[in-house]
Structure formats: structure tokens, C-alpha cells
């Protein structure tokens, strides 16, 4: 332990490097200061990544809390400005890495709005998007629940959450080729159709998953330790949510059934049957219940989407039939394990020079998007995910800004934590479910 007096800070500074807590305790006991300012993070197991919380403590009570972010800023929004519109999907998918499909969809809906092709995206592509998004919602909520349990001291929910999420990761890997960072949703549709056997695999998942959700519910719903750690903790009512721009499960746990899938539908959500989960507790426990219910509702939507994909929409195109936008290649997994498009390669290399030129131009130059701006928003697992997309008429985005729900919701953390116990800070942050990749972008 070391103590130092820094002119830039008020009072004595203690920095703990190892197991020297005794010296800190002795130092603080002798100190005349009532107030203790503690840095929680940026590296801390329960801050969901590199989030720093500056807590002013009076005993065990948090009197002031501030969040410090930016440790994971990667400049994604700036990078997109120097790539083509299609390449943009590979960047946005890395923002909130637990819900990549949502980032891609929000971005693509924005680009499609600018192109004016929203109505021309094939129905099959929309159904696949919906299915993938809802699978992703379950995966994201499972991580939220799992880490949540772990941070409150229960490791079983964590193991259950990650075990069950693995089934979805496997599905994603089978369908898109990647477990994360898929770049699967593209402007105009999706990059490839479902591979053979995908429908059966999703069907098996639908049979298995309800049991798994019940298992987690059995562990946590009535668990006295869990309930006492979460009930009436981190209270944020509807007024607070509105003022701070909080959306998603936190808002619905405050009693407002605001879900963009219902209120401002996109991708054909108005044709699916599902309920919006709400609770009235405004606390951490209600947010947990909302997320659990949402997983169950998501399963319903996946089932309906799968019926359409396997039934009436079978064999339909998955990319817009506009040769100027949709990439001509339809990738398929070859025997070497790499994606390729043998028919298309035979066509461009063997029979049509024009097709080769067209392919080359479309991939390297990309398509042009008429000048203007658009805002597309979707209901991500964390809340309203909005993409503000600006074009100057060129082949690259002029500006892309993401309204990240994690970023906005994390702002409400002081309102939840101040005046409470320091142990409840963990529950408050966990109930927001911030993903720092999305917060910092």
C-alpha cells in the first residue's frame, strides 16, 4: 500500500496493489475524513467490462456515484465513414457484441430507408431477420441473467446461462459461419440463405429451450437470497426512466408496455403474435422477471418465423432482387470448410465478362446511396437501438451514429445507486445490463 498527497485530488490517496487491505483499514480509521471515495473499476469482475464507477461512501452508504466510460472506445463510428455501405455491417456488429444481429439490423434498416427499398426487401429475408434477432435476444438475456446471478454470488445461474447460450451460438455458427460478429444482415436482405438442416436444428432448440428457461426460473424466481438482494433495490420509476431516456426492460419493469416491436413495428413484427412483458416493481427483481418473460415470448416468435421460413416462404430469395444493391454471390460452405459460391464463380470466370465486372464494381466500389439522413430504431434486448445514418450521395456513409441503449441506460445508474448500500451498486449495474462495447463504441 502506498499513501500520497496529490495536489490534483482532495485528501489522502490510498492505492491498493495486493492483499494489503489491513493497512488501508488502519489508515482510514486514523483519518479524520468522514467521506471515502472509492474507484470501482475500470477492471472489476462485476462491472461488465471496463466500466469505472466512482463512489463516494459514508460507511456502507453510497452518497454519490458517477460512472466513467470511454475505456473501450474503438472509433467504430469514425471507421465506418471510410468503408462502403456494405462493409459497415462488419463494423456495427462489433458494437454491442452480445447482440450483433440487432446492430446489423438497425444499421441495415437505416440504409434501406435511405435507399428507399424498405418495402422491397424479400419477406423471407425479413422472417430470417426476425428469427435471428429473437434468438439473439434470448442469448443476450441469458448472459444478462447468468452474469447477474454470478455477481450476486450464485455461480449456478452463470453456468446455466452460458450453457444454454451455447446452443444459440452453435445455431449462429451453423447459419452464419460465425459465433459472434456475423455481418449476416446486409442492406437489402441477409448475406446467405439458411443452410440445409438449419430449420431442424432451430426446431430442436425450440423443443429444448423452454425446459432450460424453467430451470433458471426454478433457481432464481423464489430464491430467498436472490429475492432479498433484488427486491426494492435500485428503484427507478417511470418518471425517472422518461427523464433519463431509459428504454427496454428497465422501462417495462416500471410498468410502461413500450416495445417498438408493437408500437412502431419493423421487419413485419406486426404479423407475429406475442405479448409485451411488463412489471410494476421498478426494481431489479422486476427487471429480471421482464427479461425472463421476454425470453419465453421470443421463443413464440422464433417458432412462428420458423414456420414461415420452412413453409410458405420456402425457396424465396433472401436478398433484394436489385442487381445494383444485392450481391450476386450466394455463398455455400464448401468441403474445405470455407464459404464459396461455385456456380457464381463458374459464371463470372467462365461465361460472362460483364458479370465479372459488375461483381468487382459492386464489391469494391459499392452502391451509391441518395443523399439525406434517416433514423431507424429497433427494440434490442437492452432498449431502443437507433441508427442515425447520413449520406452525401456517395458510396460510403457520411456519418453513422448509434443511439446505444446501454449508453443511455447506464446514465441512470447514479439515480439507482445513490442513497443505497454499496453492495446494491452491483445489483443496479447488473440490472442495467450494459455492454461496454456498445456504450463506448
Amino acid at each position: 500500500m502506498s499513501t500520497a498527497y496529490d495536489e490534483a485530488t482532495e485528501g489522502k490517496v490510498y492505492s491498493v496493489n495486493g492483499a494489503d487491505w489491513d493497512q488501508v483499514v488502519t489508515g482510514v480509521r486514523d483519518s479524520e475524513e468522514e467521506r471515502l471515495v472509492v474507484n470501482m473499476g475500470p477492471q472489476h469482475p462485476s462491472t461488465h467490462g471496463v466500466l469505472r464507477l466512482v463512489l463516494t461512501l459514508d460507511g456502507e452508504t453510497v452518497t454519490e456515484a458517477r460512472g466513467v466510460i470511454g475505456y473501450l472506445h474503438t472509433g467504430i463510428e469514425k471507421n465506418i465513414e471510410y468503408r462502403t455501405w456494405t462493409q459497415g455491417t462488419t463494423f456495427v456488429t462489433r458494437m454491442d457484441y452480445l447482440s450483433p444481429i440487432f446492430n446489423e439490423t438497425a444499421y441495415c434498416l437505416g440504409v434501406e430507408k435511405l435507399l428507399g427499398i424498405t418495402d422491397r426487401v424479400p419477406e423471407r429475408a425479413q422472417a430470417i431477420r426476425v428469427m435471428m434477432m429473437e434468438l439473439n435476444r434470448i442469448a443476450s438475456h441469458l448472459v444478462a441473467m447468468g452474469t447477474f446471478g454470478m455477481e450476486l454470488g450464485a455461480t449456478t445461474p452463470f453456468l446455466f446461462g452460458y450453457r444454454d447460450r451455447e446452443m444459440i451460438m452453435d445455431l449462429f455458427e451453423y447459419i452464419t459461419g460465425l459465433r459472434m460478429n456475423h455481418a449476416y444482415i446486409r442492406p437489402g436482405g441477409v448475406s446467405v440463405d439458411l443452410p440445409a438442416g438449419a430449420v431442424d436444428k432451430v426446431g430442436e432448440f425450440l423443443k429444448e429451450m423452454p425446459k432450460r428457461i424453467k430451470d433458471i426460473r426454478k433457481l432464481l424466481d423464489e430464491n430467498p437470497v436472490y429475492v432479498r438482494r433484488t427486491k426494492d433495490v435500485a428503484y427507478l420509476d417511470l418518471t425517472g426512466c422518461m427523464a433519463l431516456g431509459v428504454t427496454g426492460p428497465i422501462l417495462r419493469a416500471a410498468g410502461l408496455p413500450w416495445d417498438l416491436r408493437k408500437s412502431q413495428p419493423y421487419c413485419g413484427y406486426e404479423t407475429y403474435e406475442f405479448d409485451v412483458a411488463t412489471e410494476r416493481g421498478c426494481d431489479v427483481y422486476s427487471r429480471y422477471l421482464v427479461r425472463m418473460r421476454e425470453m419465453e415470448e421470443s421463443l413464440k416468435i422464433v417458432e412462428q418465423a420458423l414456420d414461415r421460413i420452412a413453409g410458405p416462404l420456402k425457396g424465396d430469395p433472401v436478398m433484394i432482387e436489385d442487381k445494383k444493391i444485392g450481391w450476386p454471390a450466394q455463398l455455400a460452405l464448401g468441403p474445405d470448410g470455407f464459404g464459396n459460391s461455385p456456380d457464381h464463380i463458374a459464371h463470372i470466370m467462365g461465361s460472362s465478362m460483364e458479370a465479372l465486372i459488375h461483381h468487382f464494381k459492386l464489391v469494391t466500389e459499392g452502391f451509391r446511396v441518395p443523399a439525406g439522413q434517416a433514423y431507424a430504431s429497433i427494440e434490442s434486448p437492452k432498449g431502443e437501438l437507433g441508427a442515425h445514418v447520413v449520406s452525401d450521395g456517395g458510396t460510403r456513409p457520411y456519418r453513422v451514429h448509434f443511439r446505444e441503449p446501454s449508453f443511455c441506460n447506464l446514465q441512470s445508474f447514479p439515480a439507482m445507486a445513490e442513497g443505497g448500500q454499496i453492495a446494491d451498486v452491483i445489483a443496479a449495474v447488473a440490472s442495467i445490463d450494459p455492454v461496454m462495447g456498445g456504450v463506448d463504441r
Partner: protein
Amino acid sequence: MTSPDNLPGSPEGGQAPEAAVPAVPEAPVARHGMFGAQDSGDTSGYGGLVVRRAPQISTPRPYGSYFDEIVDALALDDAIERVVVDRGELTLHVKRERLVEVCQKLRDDPALRFELSLGVSGVHYPHLTGEELHAVLHLCSITHNRRVRVEASAPDSDPHIPSTVSVYPGHDWHERETYDFFGIVFDGHPGLTRIMMPDDWDGHPQRKDYPLGGIPVEYRGATIPSPDHRRSYS
């Protein structure tokens, strides 16, 4: 720019492309040619291209949909510079000194009730002299299930826009982010500091004039140019 002696003999010379785009005669020329090839003879044929900037649009009434109702209920026509209806979205370009007043009315008027703000985004348009920096607010009314976009602009020489934290407390971090990335100073913000970049960072990275820097590589003394100086189609 391609030197004229590379082009096929044509009496109009560089005038030909001007006549090719009569639809937007008022649109200013953004640049000539493509790939940024200015020095040697460009034989690709792209050198003669003229790329025009999209004109600033202003939509006349009626705006359609529920947009007329919003503008009527707002009744602050003198605060609105222009109204744009594009791709099914309503944008109100507001004089910056009236921004807080407009937001307050948008939030509180029973006919408007835009309770939920989705934050502040910035856009830098270096070519729009006198209004280079834009702060873009997306508002949502849960009561009426409507959306509106409010835009305020400031010149590069005086990058000040009043803060709307008093109306929408959630703008705290959003305005800090926009300040950090664009250098827009939100007057009246309770603590306008950097949020993403380190505190001692120089410059505002999302501005279009922010230098990106090339990568020095040792290959016959060549340097890889920064992304904004590479050849591009855009």
C-alpha cells in the same frame, strides 16, 4: 483534374458534363473526376466526371402524415429555419438560440408530448459555410406514438449551441459525447467534459477535418496515405 489534352476532342471540353445533369442546376459542384487523380493523365475516363452536391431541401406545406399537426401545435414558426420532410421523417431546423424553448414546448405541450429523447448526435458538414456543425436531436412521443428530428447548427468559428439538459436530463452524456467528437460547446451543460476520448486529447475526432495520419512504411520511401487521402469512389 485530368488535363484537357487527354480527353477526346470535343468543342465543349469540360462543359459537356454540366449539360448532362440538368435536373439539379442549382446544386453546387462537389468535385471533378474520381479517385482523386489530379497529376498524371487519367485514362480511366472517370477524370471528366462532375460530382454534384445534393441541394439543401426545404419542404413546402402540406407536409403530409401527422407532420402538419406537429408544426401547427408547435406554433413557433419564427424559431424554425426550415422544415424538411424526407423519407417519411420530419426534421425541424431550429435557430440555435431558440432550441431550448422549442424543446421545452415539444416536451410539455399536450398536443406534442415528446417525452422521450433519444439523444444528441452530431454531424460535421464542412461545406455548409456558416452552419458547419449540426446537433441532431431525435425525439419520440410515447403518448401519440410519433417521432420528430430537431436540428440546430452552429458555425465552426462560433461552435456554441445551448444545452438542452434542463429539458431532457438524459442529454447529459449525449452532449458530452457530441462535444468530445465534434467540439460543439453546449452552453449551460452542468459539466461539459470529454467522455470517450482521454481528458488530455487534442482535437475532436469525428470532425471531417480531423487528421487521420498515414502509416509510415519502409518501402522505397513510400508512405501509406491516411484513409481520407486514399483514392475513393465517393
